[in-house]
């Protein structure tokens, strides 16, 4: 899992200079507790953007 994404990097290819997620980043994307918290935070942020836009 730690090599997830890294294996796709091709030396001096298009994607050589970017970053790829490691195991913690990958885990957090689908961790229900972390994502539930992020869900609340993203919603609040989006609501602020919406209210600033009207």
């Amino acid at each position: 899992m730690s090599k997830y994404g890294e294996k796709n990097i091709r030396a001096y290819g298009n994607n050589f200079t970017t970053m790829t997620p490691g195991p913690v980043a990958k885990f957090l994307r689908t961790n229900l507790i972390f994502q539930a918290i992020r869900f609340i935070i993203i919603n609040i942020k989006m609501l602020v953007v919406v209210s600033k836009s009207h």
Partner: protein
Amino acid sequence: MARLVVLGGGVSGHTAATFAAEWLGSAHEVVVVTPNAKWNWIPSNIWVGVGQMTKEEVTFDLAPVYAKAGIKYHQAKALGIHPEGNETSDKPYVVIESTEAGKAGQIENIEYDYLINATGPKLNFAATPGLGDANGLGEFTVSVCTADHAVHANEELHKCIEKMKKGERQKFLIGTGHGMCTCQGAAFEYIFNIEHELNKAGVRDMADIKWISNESFLGDFGVGGLHMKAMGFAVSSKIFAESLFAERDVDWIIGAHVNKVEKGKVHYELLDGSMGEEEFDFSMLIPPFAGVGLKAINKAGEDITATIFAPNGFMKVDANYAAGAYENWKASDWPSTYQNPTYGNMFACGIAFAPPHPISKPMSSPNGTPINPTPPRTGMPSGIMGKAVAHSVCDRILIGPDAPLHEASMAHMGAACVASAGKGLFTGTAAAMTIYPVVPDFEKYPGTGRDTEYTFGEIGLAGHWIKHILHHLFIWKAKLKPGWTLIPE
């Protein structure tokens, strides 16, 4: 009794018409002219295009909704505007042609006191030979721009999946079909939905997936890219996008003007002037957008289309169309009231208004071919503009012709975008992004042009859940179900 005519019942026009009907009540008349019998929540066409939703789940009949709202509905397309009336009457009117079964082709004039043009884009497939013609999509590529296109795209996708299951390798090419396209976000979402579906079908290892677009860098999205807060950094959307492409093993060609499509092959020119070809088994290329081709005629019967509309067919509004070179561009070039400068009772909102210039820096190849994204006017800004314009018209009808106009500049407005990959509640993920403001203001926010507190992006299930909620919320709102006015655009 005053009459407001709204041309176009899409995201922007539907918002404008329904709010206007709510605010004006039965003392005044709201008329919608739109060629489609059904409303389409276009963002979910992506899921139709991979077979995760049906056409019925993303569309509904307009007639009962408009009947409930007291809106007069003409299933027709507008052909022309006569803002000064004609030789026999000073009353402005629009000429419409019915698209209703049994009445198709019938011409009618509809007088108005106020006009809102929300006709959205003409999908200009004909701009690229082989991409399609004046009648629409061609035979070599697919599209997800309409629900019907998306149904067709899904059928073609599944033919490829069947071939891969039988051991035949397939090449997927997704992106933009011309150097002057917008809507990269939709193609971006589609490519990752395809990648997700191929994984689910167990054939990802049989597929080569490639992105082709007119962006000068990956993650430009037609807004000149954006910097978002992540891990304590203000990270460029280039890194964000490239990272996602690398992770999912999707290669890319950028700075590309697709100039010809043949069976299984596109021809393109790059920003450095070189020419290339790319083969494909399945390709979804977004066409460039143009105005829908409305004509404008003055009282004397003279064609004043060039006065009312920009050369790309979009309606001129209160924008600064003389900003000139990129170095001179300012956030204040962008319109705020969407009022036509020649006729004060005419407004344009959503994709139908003529932007003052792109948001991304204009670029061209050494051969002089312009290759840069044109500015996106996504769902949230289109809805907000529609509501602001409806508010202005209602005030002018209810308070008086000098009532101040409401403002909704894209330079003071944010946008929320959620690009999903997959649909399952626990298996899909999404990149959720907000951008504030849509048009960068380098005077107010030196450096990045945006407020990085409110410009952010992250990948995960949370964004995916938001995408699901938005789908149901916006369809609820568009159907005018209880509480619809409380749901923000």
